[in-house]
């Protein structure tokens, strides 16, 4: 749902960096992240890539080593209270005392938000079949996740940030959770930023994808553009052209490639047609071009990045010797 204020970002970071040790490696490394207002943003990356650290900085829970971020038009580190009013946060696990009853936890959250809508929260709890008298520690994982989402929506925030929300949920709980999130996007036109390992979900839900790897933004694009513009080329080559392919030929749009027997498999982003021509020019006997899922693209971008790193290291090693 595009809003009137098109071109504006609900969440924006500039050179966001976090080091936990003074001279240690950066966990988040100069991250430029832009979440368009009213969009669903899928934040993806391997375990330890820096997703949760980024989200904790956005929520004002961690102080960046350098760089900055804005939520709406508020800096969460300068004006933490104001920032918290405009955003709902679902952490990767519910943070509450196990002995607390649901009603008590709801009251606790309500006290922190001046714009708390008790009636709406009551309705959501009822629809989710959550008993307010239940102790938080006794809730199933799925119910706890739903409760966490309801608590994040209690003050009707403009932005919703979800950190691995469906991790460890059974399929039914996951369905119900995602239905609730999508419903909230449809009805309120909220901006949603969601980190997830479930790339099939992200592919269906997200307008924009951000891929973080080793603390850096490796790729940030509209989902549609990314899926339409990234292709896998499978070419069967003869023995002579195979050795040429392995050594020299590298289409400019190459993301990752692999040789198996006489088959050369290339993942290319952008100028697909040009890459096909380059492969054809090597004397390929057959060429197939395939669409890819987000899952395929994610793997190949990360692998390609790792391969590129190796080459850089090797070049540096040669330069040193």
């Amino acid at each position, binding site marked *: 749902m595009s809003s009137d204020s098109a071109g504006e970002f609900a969440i924006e970071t500039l050179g966001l960096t976090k080091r936990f040790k003074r001279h240690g490696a950066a966990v988040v490394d100069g991250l430029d992240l832009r979440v368009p207002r009213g969009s669903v943003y899928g934040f993806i990356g391997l375990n330890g890539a820096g997703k949760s650290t980024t989200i904790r900085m956005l929520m004002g829970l961690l102080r960046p080593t350098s760089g900055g971020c804005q939520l709406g038009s508020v800096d969460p580190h300068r004006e933490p209270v104001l920032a918290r009013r405009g955003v709902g946060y679902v952490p990767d696990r519910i943070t509450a005392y196990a002995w607390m009853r649901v009603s008590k936890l709801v009251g606790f959250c309500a006290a922190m938000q001046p714009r708390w809508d008790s009636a709406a929260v009551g309705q959501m709890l009822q629809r989710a079949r959550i008993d307010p008298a239940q102790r938080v520690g006794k809730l199933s994982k799925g119910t706890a996740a739903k409760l966490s989402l309801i608590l994040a929506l209690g003050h009707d925030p403009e932005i919703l940030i979800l950190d691995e929300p469906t991790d460890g949920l059974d399929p039914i709980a996951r*369905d119900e959770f*995602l*239905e609730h999130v*999508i*419903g909230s996007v449809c009805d309120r036109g909220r901006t949603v930023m969601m980190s997830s390992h479930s790339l099939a979900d992200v592919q269906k*839900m997200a307008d924009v994808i951000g891929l973080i790897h080793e603390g850096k933004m490796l790729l940030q694009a509209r989902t*549609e553009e990314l899926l*339409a513009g990234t292709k896998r080329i499978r070419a069967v080559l003869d023995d002579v052209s195979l050795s040429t392919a392995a050594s020299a030929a590298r289409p400019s749009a190459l993301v990752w490639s692999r040789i198996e027997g006489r088959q050369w498999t290339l993942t290319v982003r952008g100028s697909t047609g040009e890459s096909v021509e380059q492969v054809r020019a090597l004397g390929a006997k057959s060429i197939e*071009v395939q669409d890819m*899922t987000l899952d395929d693209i994610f793997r190949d971008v990360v692998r390609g990045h790792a391969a590129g790193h190796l080459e850089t290291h090797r070049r540096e090693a040669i330069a040193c010797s």
Partner: protein
Amino acid sequence: MTTNPSNLPVFQQVADQLRQKIAAGIFRPGEAVPSIRTQATALHINPNTIKRAYDELQMEGILEHRPGLGLFVTAAGAVKANTQTAQVLLATFANGVRIGIAARLSKAEIDSAYAKAWESLTDTPGRAIHQEITP
């Protein structure tokens, strides 16, 4: 160009599925199709994506928008959906034939693969079991 149905753009999958449902008479001319919200929440798909699929079907003249009421199957919608589905079918078969040619199968072998696929999906001769395709 080879395309695996699950690798198609999501809006395309949604559009194909709805076309197939209209062609199969699950939604008939003059009847409403599910709202964007209903589809989005049921399938966990971004509402913009559902809208894009619906826009495509409107452009094809299969659906029409009735202000304040929602989207309905047009009078000619079922026939048009059928034509479009036939094209999807052709593309899907073409894909299979291409795999056969790449593996150097003969035309007779490809024909027999089709016959076997038909047999495996029909309980009594000539009656196909409808299979749901979920995007």
